[in-house]
């Protein structure tokens, strides 16, 4: 294919016929398989140097490196397209020859391809318009409008390509992981893929490059085949080629017949081929030479009667209909006038229905508001109920929001459940010989202060010994000593059922205010 999209159909290496888009993609895959090696080398020749350069700059930020290598895909594809555009017309360039003109091939509209056209879902299909036809601006848009009409296969090609690339990359990492002997595995597959880490990222970079290089030749070739198929469909390349062949064949036959049956005009062959001969004559007129664009020099009025005559022949009796959606703009005023009675009718119907539903709509509106407000209130309630979510983001001094236990070892820890003067009350109980009650009160009071005011985190499962360890670890020595004595007396009373002497219990009662009045409030 020459510059500007002029084609030399005689040299075409592929068999053109009418194909669906899916068949065209299949043709592209067949081409990619046939010419895989040069295409793959061309892709690597563009991608590898950029990859190395990016690695030197960004080897500390592998995720950015992977992203950039992926982002620059439109830079690696034009050489493949260029090579294929020559190869399908019989000119197989060497990789070196393409690389010599690399910049010329890659440059057209590169910036646009790398920026806002990066996410164009039919990139490989539209690439030839920029690279081979070198159209830009409005001509490009017009051309793409014509080429892209009713063409969705290119988008699906991209979607499927992305999926294949992802599957291949995941499979690559999984295979590498499975090949690591179990004894040497230091991580799980999940962590290797998703958790940030040097080796996982390196594997993904290597796998990503490998998979991109494998998929790219198929992607570009399929897009190019779609482009060729569409042009062939629009410009009738296949018909053109067949006519040329028929003309060549008949030219030979005529020469042969002239020699063998000179003077005779009753040849059976000649009679049967009247229509075909007329067509060839027309082609002889229309196509005095190549390229095909020469056909456009014949006026439509001259060609029309001939075409109609040809179509009347039995050989062209088949007709085909195809349907597709196309936006045709707003209907004109005349059309509206023609259909005004329908519109009036519809308006009337809608008015009646609107009147009927007007009240219902108002109710619906109110309901939507109620649902919205309820949702917001519910969310606020949930947030308020889970304030501990936020506690970890706050400083430790945030005592107000801390949820405090109200019971530990069956002891009620709420301050309002304790007597106003705890020490006096305990002293009174001890004096009356109710040592268990007195010690229980002192121990409970000590815990209330430790939990509520000293903010010790005492779990429900904590035993007395563990509470003592916590106090020793976080409180002053004198306080810890007091709590130690209190705990020992409490344990003896509670579990050993050993009644203590009165003196030490009274001493504990007396010292209680001294120790716990100093606890931070």
């Amino acid at each position, binding site marked *: 294919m020459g510059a500007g999209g002029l084609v030399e159909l005689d040299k075409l290496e592929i068999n053109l016929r009418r194909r669906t888009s899916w068949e065209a993609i299949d043709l592209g895959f067949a081409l990619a398989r046939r010419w895989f090696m040069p295409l793959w080398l061309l892709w690597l020749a563009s991608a590898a140097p950029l990859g190395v350069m990016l690695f030197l700059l960004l080897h500390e930020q592998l995720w950015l490196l992977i992203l950039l290598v992926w982002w620059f895909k439109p830079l690696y594809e034009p050489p493949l397209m260029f090579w294929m555009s020559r190869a399908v017309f019989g000119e197989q360039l060497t990789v070196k020859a393409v690389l010599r003109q690399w910049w010329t091939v890659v440059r057209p509209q590169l910036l646009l391809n790398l920026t806002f056209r990066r996410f164009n879902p039919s990139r490989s299909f539209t690439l030839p318009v920029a690279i081979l036809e070198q159209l830009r601006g409005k001509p490009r848009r017009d051309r793409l409008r014509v080429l892209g009409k009713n063409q969705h296969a290119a988008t699906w090609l991209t979607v499927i390509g992305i999926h294949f690339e992802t599957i291949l990359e995941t499979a690559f990492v999984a295979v590498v992981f499975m090949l690591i002997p179990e004894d040497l595995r230091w991580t799980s597959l999940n962590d290797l893929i998703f958790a940030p880490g040097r080796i996982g990222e390196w594997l993904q970079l290597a796998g990503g490059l490998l998979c991109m290089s494998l998929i790219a030749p198929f992607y570009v070739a399929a897009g190019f085949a779609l482009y060729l198929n569409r042009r062939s469909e629009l410009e009738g390349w296949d018909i053109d080629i067949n006519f040329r062949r028929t003309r060549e064949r008949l030219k030979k036959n005529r020469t042969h017949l002239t020699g063998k049956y000179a003077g005779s005009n009753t040849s059976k062959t000649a009679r049967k081929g009247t229509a075909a001969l007329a067509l060839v004559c027309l082609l002889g007129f229309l196509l005095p030479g190549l390229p095909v664009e020469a056909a456009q020099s014949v006026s439509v009025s001259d060609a029309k009667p001939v075409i109609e005559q040809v179509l009347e022949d039995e050989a062209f009796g088949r007709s085909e209909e195809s349907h597709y959606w196309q936006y045709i703009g707003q209907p004109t005023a005349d059309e509206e006038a023609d259909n005004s009675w329908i519109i009036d009718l519809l308006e009337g119907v809608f008015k009646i229905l609107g009147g009927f539903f007007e009240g219902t709509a108002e109710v619906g509106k109110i309901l939507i508001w109620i649902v919205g407000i309820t949702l917001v209130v519910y969310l606020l309630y949930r947030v308020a109920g889970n304030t501990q979510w936020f506690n970890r983001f706050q400083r430790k001094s945030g005592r107000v929001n801390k949820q405090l236990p109200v019971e530990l070892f069956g002891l009620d820890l709420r301050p309002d459940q304790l007597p106003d003067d705890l020490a006096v009350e305990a002293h009174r109980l001890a004096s009356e010989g109710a040592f268990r009650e007195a010690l229980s009160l002192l121990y409970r009071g000590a815990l209330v202060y430790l939990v509520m005011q000293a903010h010790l985190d005492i*779990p429900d*499962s904590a035993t*007395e010994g563990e509470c003592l360890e916590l106090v020793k670890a976080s409180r002053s020595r004198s306080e810890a000593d007091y709590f130690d004595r209190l705990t020992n007396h409490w344990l003896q009373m*509670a*579990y050993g059922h050993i009644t203590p002497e009165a003196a030490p219990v009274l001493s504990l009662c007396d010292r209680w205010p001294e120790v716990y009045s100093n606890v931070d409030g």
Partner: protein
Amino acid sequence: MNDSQGQDQLSEKVLRKLGKLEQEIGRAVIGQRQVVRDATIALLAGGHVLVEGVPGLGKTLLVRSLAAAVGGVFNRVQFTPDLMPSDISGHIMFDRKSDSFRVRKGPVFCNFLLADEINRAPAKTQSALLEVMQEQQVTIEGQSFELGLPFLVLATQNPIEQEGTYPLPQAQLDRFLLKVFIDYPDMEEELQMVQQITCDAVADKLDVSSVQEVLQPEEILSLQRYTSKLEVDEQIVAYAVKIVRATRDWSGIESGSGPRGSISLLRAGRANAVLSGRRFVTPDDVKAVAPAVLRHRIKLSADLEIEGYQPDDVLKDILSNVEAPRV
């Protein structure tokens, strides 16, 4: 003087000696304080210990020191695949001189038996020993022989070489009061151990000459009786039962501990209280012995085992979730 006061006076006297028991063992066994404590708990509770640890960490030395400190008889049996039950319990042989049958008692007739690598013997031999542990008597050719008390079996397992072994079934494991792990000593302890053992010693012979006899076997028996009568509040019993019951329907445990677990927990808890110098059991005693008592009585689900969880991890979760007694 009533019985209680008499017992108190007895215990006061014996408890002072008991306090020295761990010290004496510590003269020969450097470090491994938890293992020494667990072996002593088992001795007081009249139970047996399954020790898991690699070879060369002082298991034999521990049992020999224990035997030396309480003046008991020590024996050791190396379990092998061809070991027969009669190799442990003994057998009847015909004595030509006296022209009669004579009973030849096996190594099980002792106070302290080290059953080394118990999982290397087939199930029949293991069962013979475990039956002796349970019944504390041996039957040879229809004749029953009482074992000398106290009787403590310290069986060992090597956790790294599982090839050609016969793992103990869950029912057999349940017979051991405690399962303890013996781990490598830390740097300081190992230094001290190497210096002590290599000084004035020929070959690898274990030296327990520095261990003095502090208790008589009879005193151990009286201590065991004292321990078994130690007062336990109802709340403590409930706490032990709650812990054991929690293992039965805890997520990640395939089969939990049976009632023998609760019984063992209280027996070991009592012994721990005695060793701590108390005459009553506290929740801390139960909590302290719970891992050693329960770790071999639960079976983790396959999921947890595959993920590398150990019974101790799950027990830690249970202990931090079961509420302590509410008095």
